[in-house]
């Protein structure tokens, strides 16, 4: 049994599925020579992306984003709190990323997956450093009351490109967010009290109507996998597990680089490869902007 030809001989005898399980890398390389992937996608194309806004009715803002089979649900609830002394004019965002066992057979109950804290940290870094949300907009009464946005992201299905889908769901949720009307007043102890009543003469309503938050420079991302000389955009979970060099590029709408994340990997990234990834991400940003705008305008028609 000559080893260099072992898989070659087997490929004529064995079915595609078995070959895929036994020699996944060879199957992919055969496809990459033709510049296509086993699921018939060209190398630079991302999977079908959909956004559903307002998926959670009880939350102030929510969105369900799907890229291929990867599904993420983001929900935002707002609460009034006292701002910290260092930033009396700013609100706060608390980001929490969950990967419940429903998302993948690898994740077990009670034992967080090792990918979860990494994606959580990447998300919080990206959201806070991209300047998408001006925290001063979340302020109500300077030094006394400000909004705290609790952002929860739930992963419902894992099929590669977790960070991309999570970021998309967060951005969509924030664009759908409606800040509720608080009536904020000081009670006898001098503490902030939130009440829903209006029309009483000794209390001043702060906001007259629900308002949307202003988003400047929205970040969008694309994850690519590097293998030898090929760059595969938007990998599935199978591709991510076989080819271990993953590069995530986050660009905002003015093409500034928000984040370039490449955590090790066998393939070294030369400048040309990085430039190709950034170019692919620029294209993807345009696609995602269009999809987001269509989703928002779809909701407004209703």
């Amino acid at each position, binding site marked *: 049994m000559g080893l260099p030809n072992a898989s070659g001989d087997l490929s004529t005898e064995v079915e595609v599925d078995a070959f895929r*399980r*036994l020699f996944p890398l060879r199957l992919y390389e055969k496809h990459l020579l033709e510049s296509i992937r086993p699921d018939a996608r060209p190398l630079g194309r991302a999977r079908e992306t959909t956004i559903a806004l307002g998926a959670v009715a009880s939350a102030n803002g929510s969105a369900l984003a799907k890229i291929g089979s990867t599904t993420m649900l983001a929900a935002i609830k707002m609460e009034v709190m006292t701002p910290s002394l260092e930033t009396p004019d700013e609100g706060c965002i608390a980001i929490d990323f969950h990967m419940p066992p429903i998302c993948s057979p690898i994740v077990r109950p009670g034992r967080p997956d*090792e*990918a979860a*804290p*990494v994606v*959580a*940290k*990447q998300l919080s*870094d990206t959201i806070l*450093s*991209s*300047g998408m949300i001006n925290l001063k907009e979340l302020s109500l009464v300077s030094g006394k009351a400000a909004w705290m946005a609790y952002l929860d992201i739930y992963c419902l299905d894992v099929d590669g490109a977790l960070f991309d889908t999570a970021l998309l769901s967060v951005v969509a949720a924030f664009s759908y967010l409606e800040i509720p009307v608080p009536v904020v007043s000081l009670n006898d102890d001098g503490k902030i009290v939130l009440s829903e009543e209006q029309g009483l003469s000794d209390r001043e309503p702060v906001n007259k109507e629900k308002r949307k938050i202003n988003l400047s420079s929205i970040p969008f991302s694309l994850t690519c996998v590097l293998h030898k000389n090929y760059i595969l955009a938007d990998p599935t979970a199978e591709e991510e597990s076989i080819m*271990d*060099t993953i590069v995530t590029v986050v660009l*905002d709408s003015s*093409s*500034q*680089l*928000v*984040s*370039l*994340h*490449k*955590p*090790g*990997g*066998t393939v*070294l*990234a*030369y*400048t040309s490869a*990085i430039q190709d990834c*950034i170019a692919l991400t620029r294209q993807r940003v345009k696609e995602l902007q269009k999809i987001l705008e269509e989703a928002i305008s779809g909701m407004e028609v209703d």
Partner: protein
Amino acid sequence: MEVDGEDGRTQNQLRPLACSHNILYRAHGSASWSLRTRTLRKQTGQIDNLLKSYLMRMRPWLNGNKEALEFKFHHVWVWFRYSGLPLEEAYEMILKRTLQSICHLTINPNTTTSIIIQVINDDSALLSCAINAACVALVDAGIPTKHVAVAICCCVAKSGCKMKAFAYLAFPNSVHSVLPERSSSMQGKPIEHGIVTSVTNGIMSADNYFYSLERGRAASVRVVRVSQEELATALN
């Protein structure tokens, strides 16, 4: 060159580096890496950024996971002990992947190598310090690696030394650089130009990123010299 930094450094200057190896008796290999910051005003205060990285005994580990058909039987575990923040786990994953990519995984099958990194003091540039210390410890332990990764932290600042964004970059350093006769290259590009790891934080333009790559490469040459000298003393 104007003096930009608070501690009197110019743009291209690194903090003084210190490296030592074989400091722990029990471990197979160990190394300590420190960058010292000196504050100009208070001569008494010296803030160190020391990182000790050491390897535990390599113990046999039955590999009963799902990837039984692959040839990777060698795990690399990284434990990063700092202060229990979620930062730790993200850094662990980045370190693990970086080190996994430079080790030859098939040489010791059914073995786990544990790398434990203890932060003595933190004064930023933590991840790059950790990668450097771990690489020196791996060499100290005698684990064969494809190349040594050299890490550096570059930051993009607006004028007035307010940091806008920073990037942790790790470059490979070929063993051939010790022998001056030839250096290995891949398709005409020297291997040192590739990036093993890159983690950025904050907004910067793409051009700034490529510029900081070049500066990082230039600075990494000096960083590598420190660890090479240190290891050369061990061979003599």
